[in-house]
């Protein structure tokens, strides 16, 4: 215990000394650092912050030091999170490499693959995107058709992906491909390749929110080195599913942090519906706000209980299966409720007549609709709970 206390003191001192002032303020989405060859660091202090954190391995605190990690125990990583929270430090790096690819590469990658990719992820040098969904393979992901053929000294990839987040900015892709057309789940492989390869084309898709974070991605005779397959031929589905678990945790978490400058529901409601007494004047909305924030509270307690179970080694896995579903539905409900509270002030698309916060509310409300679709729809999540947790028959 005293060792951990010592670590906390050192960590606090180091963060206090090394976290630049602007990195202790709420992060506008535009200043989020995704890393990669094209990173421009809109705020120069974010580059410094990333370099310092990566230097200690603290962009990926629990990864082994050999791969650019901090080699911290779970307890130490928790201390680091708490101390960063205390100083309000921004995350130095947002990365699909950290959140999704890293954990499965650590488990399934060859030594050479780990040595090549993990340190670059940790330092934010390579930005990754995820090639999963296809036009004909959404919820039924395993019906994917992108072909990957063995050409002796290389793989040849042909097909199309869709909803590839930030594919137009990504340096590399981790991709599900079909290596056997005679079977479904057992004919899928997990492969990595450079987005600068010849035959790769990306087209951004404009969403209802006006943003274009997703792309259509086309592969035409893309040549990929033989060593880039991860986890063995036709063994990709296992990795795909495991990675989805990481992705769902990430979406539930990100769902709570997008629209980062929009205050909580009760604060917005009080701001727009104050009757002078400090209470929300509209009785029906007050009840709806109370219901919402109470569900938030109960959900937060459930996440904490799951973490305590997992620490104590008594987790059954049942609880975590509800996180993606509940977190995203709750985030959608939050923005619906905020839209009701702010009335016509939330209906501005751009320009004069609306505050920045009001414009952000409208755009984030629209963006939140995707939370319960991406990474496994709510309906798929309910199916998973019914089958795996409740044991209901197919």
């Amino acid at each position, binding site marked *: 215990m005293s060792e951990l206390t010592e670590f906390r003191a050192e960590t606090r001192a180091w963060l206090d000394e090394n976290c630049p002032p602007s990195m202790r303020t709420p992060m506008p989405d535009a200043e989020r650092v995704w890393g990669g060859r094209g990173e421009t660091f809109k705020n120069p202090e974010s580059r410094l912050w990333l370099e310092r954190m990566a230097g200690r391995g603290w962009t990926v605190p629990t990864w082994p030091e050999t791969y650019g990690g901090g080699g911290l125990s779970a307890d130490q990583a928790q201390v680091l999170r708490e101390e960063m929270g205390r100083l309000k430090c921004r995350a130095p790096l947002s990365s699909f490499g950290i959140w999704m690819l890293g954990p499965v590469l650590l488990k399934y990658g060859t030594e050479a693959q780990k040595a090549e990719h993990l340190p670059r992820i940790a330092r934010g040098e390579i930005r990754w995107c995820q090639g999963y969904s296809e036009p004909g393979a959404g919820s039924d992901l395993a019906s994917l058709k992108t072909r990957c053929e063995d050409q002796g000294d290389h793989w040849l990839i042909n097909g199309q992906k869709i909803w590839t987040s930030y594919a137009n900015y990504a340096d590399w892709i981790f991709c599900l491909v079909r290596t056997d057309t005679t079977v479904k789940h057992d004919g899928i492989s997990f492969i990595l390749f450079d987005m600068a390869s010849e035959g790769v084309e990306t087209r951004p898709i404009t969403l209802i929110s006006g943003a274009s974070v997703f792309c259509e991605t086309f592969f035409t005779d893309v040549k990929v080195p033989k060593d880039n397959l991860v986890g063995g031929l036709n063994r990709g589905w296992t990795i795909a599913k495991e990675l989805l678990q990481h992705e769902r945790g990430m979406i539930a978490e990100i769902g709570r942090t997008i629209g980062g400058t929009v205050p909580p529901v009760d604060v917005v409601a009080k701001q727009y519906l104050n009757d002078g007494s400090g*209470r*929300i004047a509209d009785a029906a909305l*007050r009840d709806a*706000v*109370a219901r919402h924030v*109470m569900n938030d509270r109960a959900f937060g307690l459930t996440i904490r209980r799951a973490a*305590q179970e997992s620490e104590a080694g008594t987790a059954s896995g049942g609880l975590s299966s509800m996180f993606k579903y509940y977190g995203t539905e709750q985030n959608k409900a939050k923005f619906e409720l905020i839209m009701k509270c702010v009335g016509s002030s939330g209906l501005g698309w751009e320009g004069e007549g609306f505050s920045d916060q009001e414009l952000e509310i409208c755009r984030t409300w629209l963006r939140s609709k995707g939370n319960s679709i991406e990474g496994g729809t709510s*309906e798929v*999540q309910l199916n998973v709970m*019914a089958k795996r947790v409740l044991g209901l028959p197919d």
Partner: protein
Amino acid sequence: MNLLLSEEEQILKHGAHEFFTAQLPVAAFRRLRDEIGDLGYDPGAWREMAEMGWAGVVLPEAYGGAGFGYKGLGQVLEEAGRTLAASPLFATALVGAPLVLAGGSDAIKSAFLPAVAAGERLLALALDEHPRFAPSRIASRAALEGDAYRLNGCKRFVLDGHVADQIIVAARTSGEIDDAAGITLFLVEAAAEGVLRTRTRMVDSRNAAQISFNDVIVGRDRILGQVDAGLELLEPVLDAATAGLAAEMLGCGAEAFERTLAYLKLRDQFGVKIGSFQALKHRAALMYCELELTRSAVLAALSAVDEGSAERAALTSLAKAKASEMLELVTNEAVQMHGGIGMTDAEEIGLFLKRARVAQQIFGDASYHRARYADLMGF
């Protein structure tokens, strides 16, 4: 805040499970309803519960109590909820005893608490005067005449009111209806002159009473806490009891859900198990989410009571609101998913629906506690 059960609490839960399934299963509750009638609880089982220390569960050892925390007690109540066990545990051990402990003089505590802990005396709280819970909506009056008070008023929904030996009555000693101040708690002999008790037969077949107090004379020495400050005494005790009630409701909901799930895996229609239908699967998964959220809220509320946390009131309202919402959903779905059989008196699932609605109303339903939560959070 620790949301896991200690080894001791797990043992307690296990013991309670063994006891309730053996001594007070749902079948026993049905027998109580159909055959025994007058008492509304099983005195033999209550004696056994007292021997296990549950009657004095929140009392210190000096008064013969067991002195284990609310988180432990919550496990006993959850198991009681699973078998719909009817007993004086709630009205006497969770509400009455802590009120006497918190507000009684030494003489009163010594006179009553050891007998309560031994399971020999029963208590009841006479608070409600209106159909919806509103603790300051009190018109009953107690007027000081010399050295005693003259008590007049009508109370309703008094749990165990018809079998209690002593009734704790909230009456106005000053102020007007809806004033938070001016309410005083009196410990009144049930057998005192002018106390008229009418047993009300509730939909859950448990005991409650309407009680009128007609010029009942109560000594000043029978006041609990301070004159005019009854609500201050009540609030923390009601919170703790409400957290316990939410644990009972969690057990009731968990059992109704598990029985329904078992039925979905058993019942064949169209040549398949009905549990294979997506329309039912999704609703089952939604119930699972609500149950787990409720469990987290209940554990947090019980811990907050034990720790004397500043969040006690908010977390208690959270637990009662979530438990009420969850139980309404789960018991309605349970009857629906059992189909026609769920509508019959012979099938036990309907008993859970009946108990649920009564428990929801005790000490405030979901909308009451959402409003209280909003008050506490300042919006």
